[in-house]
């Protein structure tokens, strides 16, 4: 796919960062605000779609390696199932980190409060694992669709040029 015009590329340069930051926010705040691993991962994967559509498949595929995404996908799934099995002393998926102190287990005070970020135990860890998995899976779908297009376009011998160059 050809890279789009300089207007689209400038807007993509500005707004792709906001998409990534907002997706990371939705993933990290998954247990106290709407959203979670899947929703935030889909938002971050939209950033990959924006980059691919604005800059063209050839330029993005020149520095994106699908092996990294496959590794991220496997890492997310492994972290998820490991966090599930680590609580098997009580039950499967037992929240063994909650209320224990430390990074993930601070105690929630009594009464109404606005939500403590690092109080969810393994839930936020699983949100991050699911977010990593969804980002890499949906990005891989887009990347392989672009590779499929280049399979057809390479046969025509047509070089990839933008609309303004």
């Amino acid at each position: 796919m050809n890279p789009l015009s300089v207007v689209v590329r400038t807007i993509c340069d500005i707004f792709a960062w906001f998409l990534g930051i907002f997706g990371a926010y939705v993933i990290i705040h998954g247990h106290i605000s709407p959203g979670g691993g899947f929703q935030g991962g889909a938002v971050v994967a939209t950033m990959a779609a924006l980059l691919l559509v604005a800059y063209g498949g050839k330029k993005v595929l020149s520095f994106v390696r699908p092996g990294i995404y496959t590794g991220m996908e496997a890492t997310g799934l492994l972290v998820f199932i490991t966090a599930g099995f680590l609580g098997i002393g009580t039950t499967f998926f037992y929240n063994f980190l909650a209320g224990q102190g430390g990074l993930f287990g601070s105690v929630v005070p009594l009464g109404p409060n606005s939500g403590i970020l690092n109080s969810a135990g393994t839930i936020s860890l699983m949100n991050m694992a699911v977010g990593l998995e969804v980002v890499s899976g949906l990005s891989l779908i887009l990347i392989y669709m672009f590779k499929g297009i280049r399979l057809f376009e390479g046969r025509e011998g047509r070089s990839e040029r933008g609309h303004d160059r």
Partner: protein
Amino acid sequence: MNGYAHMAVLAIIVIAAFYAVWFRDLLSSVISLAVFSLLLALEYFMLQAPDVAIAEAAIGAGLSTAIYIIALRACKALKSPRGGEGR
């Protein structure tokens, strides 16, 4: 007041769905489908399901539109007269 807002959003959803079927140009049809999905996300938000609204906006309006556009691009490359009809 809230009922009128629901009715307006649902009416525009029906109009967008009609245009998604009615357009002969497939790219316009895909854009209309994205509008449909975005308004459906707005309707989910008004029905107090912001979790579903985020998923619908990201998947429906963002990713599936991009995938449809990539697929349209592939179809055009397949039908171009200079080649590509090898399969």
